[in-house]
């Protein structure tokens, strides 16, 4: 199992997210930082993706629209880390972890805290054979990206 960091332009981010999710047929934990779970699910469905295989963690809104969606504040990295770890433990078999806009964490947390969070989840995922895909727009958080490059097996700059 590997971990990949994809750095792409803001304009292409949405498209890349759909491509990434489509490329996996295993269940996935989707951490949504750009859009609400409702919006991203609609976009993915329009992209022809079966969202039933996805477990959403919505870090954008705290409004509970569906029972099976977890809402965690983006500044509560400890809670988020615990949620991701618990999903990884509970979902049987192979799975993928997708974080759709990693640098958004910088709005709510300092760089070092985000870097520590990324390190923790990539390590945990690696031990538990979980594929990790993190996407980040190019224009945000260059210093953070420099810090976290080494935590990923692959870094794709587009």
């Amino acid at each position, binding site marked *: 199992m590997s971990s990949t960091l994809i750095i792409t332009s803001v304009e292409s981010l949405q498209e890349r997210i759909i491509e990434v999710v489509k490329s996996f047929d295993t269940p996935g934990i989707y951490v949504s930082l750009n859009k609400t779970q409702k919006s991203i699910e609609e976009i993915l469905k329009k992209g022809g993706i079966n969202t039933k295989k996805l477990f959403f963690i919505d870090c954008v809104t705290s409004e509970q629209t569906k029972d099976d969606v977890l809402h965690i504040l983006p500044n509560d990295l400890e809670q988020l880390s615990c949620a991701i770890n618990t999903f990884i433990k509970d*979902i049987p078999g192979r*799975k993928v972890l997708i974080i759709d806009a990693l640098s958004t964490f910088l709005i709510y947390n300092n760089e070092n805290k985000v870097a520590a969070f990324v390190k923790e989840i990539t390590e945990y995922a690696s031990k538990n054979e979980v594929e990790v895909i993190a996407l980040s727009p190019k224009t945000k958080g260059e210093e953070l990206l420099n810090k976290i490059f080494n935590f990923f097996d692959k870094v794709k700059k587009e």
Partner: protein
Amino acid sequence: MKTTIQIIVVILLLAAPILAQDNYNLKVEIPESHSKISAGESVWFTAKILNLGNENRKDITLKFEMYDPNKKLVVSKAETAAIETHASFVRNLEIPKNSPPGVYIIYVKIPYSDGTEAVSQASFEVTTNKKAIIIIGVAILLLLILILLVIWISYKWKKMYLKMKIHQIVNKKLRQNFKF
């Protein structure tokens, strides 16, 4: 003879006030063990009186007064006692609970009939109430422990609740026969 007796009577009448004059040697002592007391406790002291005036048994008034470091009268007591040639009294005065720390003075007074008085004084120190400080300290510590416990429990509960919710979400999808 008659004249002699009259003269003697006049002399005695004139001398009576002098002979019956109040004159006491008064000394008050506070034992070393009571030289430092906490507020709320009692200070014990000894009043030793020598009757220098005459040898007759006499009732006297003893006044006890305690003054704080600001020279304010905080405790006052009076009693009547009988004395012949000498007497010794052991007494105590309670220091009010809210008394500030500092040097206090006890006065023991014996008023004379001519308006003057015999006075003796002794001083002692009121220290901060160690027992109260310890009790307050323990109470604060317990309160802090309780607060930390509540924070820890709510933190643990938050995590537990999150895990429970995730279990429910995953089980729900499994029950929906979603093939993983």
